[in-house]
């Protein structure tokens, strides 16, 4: 094997931060090289240097053994490097063909003389796209409008765009972050196919399972340094996690058997509509008891969002009943649910969970700012608020320059910790007041790194052990498997089945997530 891309001794400094410190990285011909690391470890900086977005302060980049300077993305593309960004660079109202042509427009030969006014040759471009799409199994319709395509298809458009520009080296920046597990598996097949046809791929991720599924070699970065490169056969999940975090990480959450108490949340035949007036939750019934974690598994978009919003008073219930501690709370506004002891870690931390412009301090009391001692009458007691905030920042290890820093300037993991701290502290309070508290957590660790996930998982289990009823909704099967006491699988607005987490297997739950019930599977 020969190295198609080699970076040696790359150092890149930003004001006050060293993003890359003497990093070596080699991509061999025809391999999938996974680049693993927590948020802020320097993966993106390294890739942006290879893609010409940044210039390294020190170090060398070589392509096919030749030292080169990659001055701009244009330069990178000319040298056969293509990058698929985490956030797609597509123009939604244009067709797939137009998006892919953009920046490399081919024109009809007869009109070439017209210069800027030449007529676009969509037909030959579409033909090439169709050819690429067949060759690599990237199913897309060249004539489709990009804005109408699902996320997975948009990603395929991005990949074709890179291939269209004759990229031999593909950099995929967290490509699975936006995909369902099934879509991720499809992507891996595509990646295999591309490698077999001679391309080389750098695959950036922080999910350990994916690395084992697809990578030929794994490089781990931490704090701007390259920790090491190993092959999947030599690695274990624990070893990789330790390399990423710099200390031993307990991947399996240690938890005692649940001791379920009285029912806290009872949902009976719930029907909820989504924004487009589709009945996305169609007859869900479930019960969450004090001291247990009920996990709701399911591929995203099967009604979990609407279920959560209905249970927390953010969405109208079309039919059915929600009973919180024996009281009917079906059509109760959020404030009353909050006061009844219901905590909610929302799915979208930027939309619902935080006021990004507010300081961390205010975000930590977002639901309780009006209660004594945080306020006396209408007057806010900033001494008490600051004390509460400082205490939570310390307890939940929120990495922030201070409680006055705006929440928007924290990293995703720390933002999530702010939300979890706020909601779990309200659980503690509800417990202290003699309520049986309820935690509804939707995707509590989405997009977070291993260290933060471990931390938040431990806190959720602690809340359970202190007597909270926990409803955990997640599309991450691993999360559901390791935290839940019981697992309810949601499919097309229904709970397909509820299984005991101690006996359930990944395969069993995975089949249910795909809509295959046990009877059907056996029959």
């Amino acid at each position, binding site marked *: 094997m020969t190295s198609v891309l080699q970076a040696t001794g790359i150092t890149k400094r930003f004001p006050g931060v060293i993003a890359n410190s003497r990093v070596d990285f080699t991509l061999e011909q025809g391999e999938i090289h996974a680049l693993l690391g927590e948020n802020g470890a320097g993966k993106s900086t390294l890739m942006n240097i290879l893609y010409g977005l940044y210039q390294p*302060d020190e170090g060398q980049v070589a392509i096919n053994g030749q030292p080169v300077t990659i001055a701009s993305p244009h330069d990178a593309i000319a040298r056969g490097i293509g990058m698929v960004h985490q956030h797609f660079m597509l123009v939604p109202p244009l067709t797939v063909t137009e998006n892919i042509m953009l920046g490399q427009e081919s024109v009809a030969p007869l009109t070439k003389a017209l210069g800027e006014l030449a007529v676009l040759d969509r037909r030959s471009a579409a033909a090439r796209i169709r050819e690429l799409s067949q060759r690599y199994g990237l199913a897309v319709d060249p004539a489709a409008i990009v804005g109408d395509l699902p996320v997975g298809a948009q990603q395929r458009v991005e990949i074709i765009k890179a291939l269209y520009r004759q990229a031999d080296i593909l950099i995929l920046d967290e490509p699975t972050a936006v995909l369902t597990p099934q879509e991720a598996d499809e992507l891996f097949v595509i990646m295999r196919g591309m490698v077999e046809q001679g391309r080389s791929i750098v695959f950036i991720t922080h999910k350990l399972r994916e690395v084992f599924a697809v990578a030929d070699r794994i490089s781990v970065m931490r704090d701007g340094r390259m920790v090491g490169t190993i092959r999947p056969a030599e690695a274990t999940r624990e070893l990789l996690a330790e390399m990423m975090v710099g200390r031993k990480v307990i991947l399996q959450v240690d938890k005692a058997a649940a001791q379920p108490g009285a029912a806290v949340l009872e949902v009976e035949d719930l029907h909820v509509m989504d924004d487009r007036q589709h009945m996305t939750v169609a007859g869900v019934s479930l019960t969450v008891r004090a001291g247990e974690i009920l996990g709701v598994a399911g591929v995203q978009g099967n009604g979990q969002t609407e279920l959560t919003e209905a249970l927390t008073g953010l969405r109208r219930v079309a039919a059915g009943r929600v009973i919180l501690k024996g009281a009917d709370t079906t059509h109760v506004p959020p404030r009353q649910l909050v006061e009844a002891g219901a905590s909610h870690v929302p799915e979208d931390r930027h939309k619902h969970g*935080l006021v990004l412009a507010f300081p961390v301090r205010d975000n930590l009391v977002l639901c309780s700012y009006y209660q004594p001692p945080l306020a006396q009458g209408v007057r806010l007691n900033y001494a008490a608020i600051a004390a509460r905030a400082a205490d939570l920042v310390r307890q939940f290890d929120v990495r922030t320059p201070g409680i006055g820093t705006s929440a928007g300037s924290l990293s995703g993991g720390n933002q999530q910790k702010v939300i979890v701290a706020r909601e779990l502290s309200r659980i503690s309070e509800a417990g202290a007041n003699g309520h049986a508290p309820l935690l509804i957590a939707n995707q509590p660790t989405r997009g977070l790194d291993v260290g933060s996930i471990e931390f938040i998982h431990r806190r959720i289990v602690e809340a359970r052990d202190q007597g909270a009823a926990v409803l955990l909704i997640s599309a991450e099967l691993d999360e559901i498997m390791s935290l839940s006491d019981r697992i309810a699988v949601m499919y097309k607005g229904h709970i397909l089945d509820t299984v005991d987490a101690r006996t359930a297997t990944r395969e069993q739950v995975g089949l249910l997530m795909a809509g295959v019930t046990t009877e059907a599977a056996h029959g």
Partner: protein
Amino acid sequence: MADLAPDTNPKTVASSRQERSVASSLAARLGNLLSMPALALLSAFVLGAVVIWVTSGQFVTVLEAYSGLVRGAFIKQRGFSESLVAMVPYVFLSLAVALGFKAGLFNIGVEGQFYVGAISAAWAGQALAGLPAIVHLPLALLAGAVGGAIWAGIPGYLKARTGAHEVISTMMMNYVAFRLAEFVVSGPLRDRNATAVQTPRISRAAELWSLWDIPNRLAEPLNALGVALLFGFLAWIITRAVRGRREIANSKLQMADGRSQTANGKWQMADGGSQTNSAQDALRNTEYALRTTHYAPLIIAILVAVLSFAALPPLTRLGWPFADQYDRLHIGIFLAVLAAVGVWWLLWKTTIGFELRMVGANPNAARYAGVNITRNIVLGLALSGALAGVAGTVEVLGVSICRCLPLFFSSGYGFDSIAIALLGRNNPFGILASSFLFGAMRNGADLMELNSGVSKYVISLIQALVLLFVAAPAVVRWIYRMRAPRQAEEEAPLTRGWGG
């Protein structure tokens, strides 16, 4: 890039950053806050100079114009106080705009609310004749506030109920207000004895006192009592605020003590913690502090009230600096400062303001946190309208020559105030400064025209440029080669999309 990160050793980079942040964070924050408006002003005046130069053909006109502006605004007789007179409605109106912005609402209808406030005040000022000033003046102000609040509350209700965008509805309400004022002045409220079309003169008790008139006003015991009560109230608030600051400092100390006890964060600790020694000490300290200071604000307030009641009338008669009877400056200027403090307190020190700002910054999160969005939209616009209404009131009660609402009561204050609020960064104290500046420009424009022959509408041009630069900070940053701020500041969006 090289000069930004000269160190290679990560430790030195980190430590030098720390030192820098400690040493200059305050100065930097203040500088950051002021630099953008200051540069916007500078740029606007420079561009204005270019326009004057080009249109007049000689550079000396620029000097004549700007020196005329400065003399008109500050130096000529009553120039300074006229600038303050013009500043007063600006303060109320731009506070109204800023309060709306903070709640995520673009109240573009302050001009209309200003008119309705003026109508209400013109009515209350003469309809309730016979009441003593201590009752009548506050009632007239209240009437103006209520009028403005209702006028802005209607679009607020429409937005909350139907999603009608407030930019459209408040602006349309402007035209209704203008016509309403014409109707009221020429119809139901017209003064039949006056030749001009105007409302009857308000009673003297409802007037906002001119500064030169204060000794005469205070000669009436009831007026002196009113002032004494107001001063007492202010003293009460100030002493309470000072005590509150001390309590915060104390509680920080106690917090440091109590920290080790609550480290586990288990809720079982909540009632067990107070048994420990240091907590008991803290409790005793607090009790002691409470006993000694609980009544202090009240005692001080009563002292201040009694003293001012006894001493102010004779003292003002002995010597009073404002003797000029043609000076129009009135006590509205003090009300404007009080209003700025009041808005600041409401927005940043109360749960009401917390909710308003939350709805403004992220309505989804506010709903999640249990905040009633509907109520806050109506409240935000109504409060904004109340401030705008007071502006109109102040013009009727304190400034208009006839002490009434005339048919031609054109102001144009309302639209300027959007620029002023932005220039003041929607901060009440920034608004005091930017209002004064706009008041001075408005006041100095006449002498500028007289002095140099340059049309006074050049001032509107400069004001428009200020707005342009403030609204597009990227332009200013580009001109002065400044770097973009690294941290997202707390800034409410000017307005959200038309979808609501």
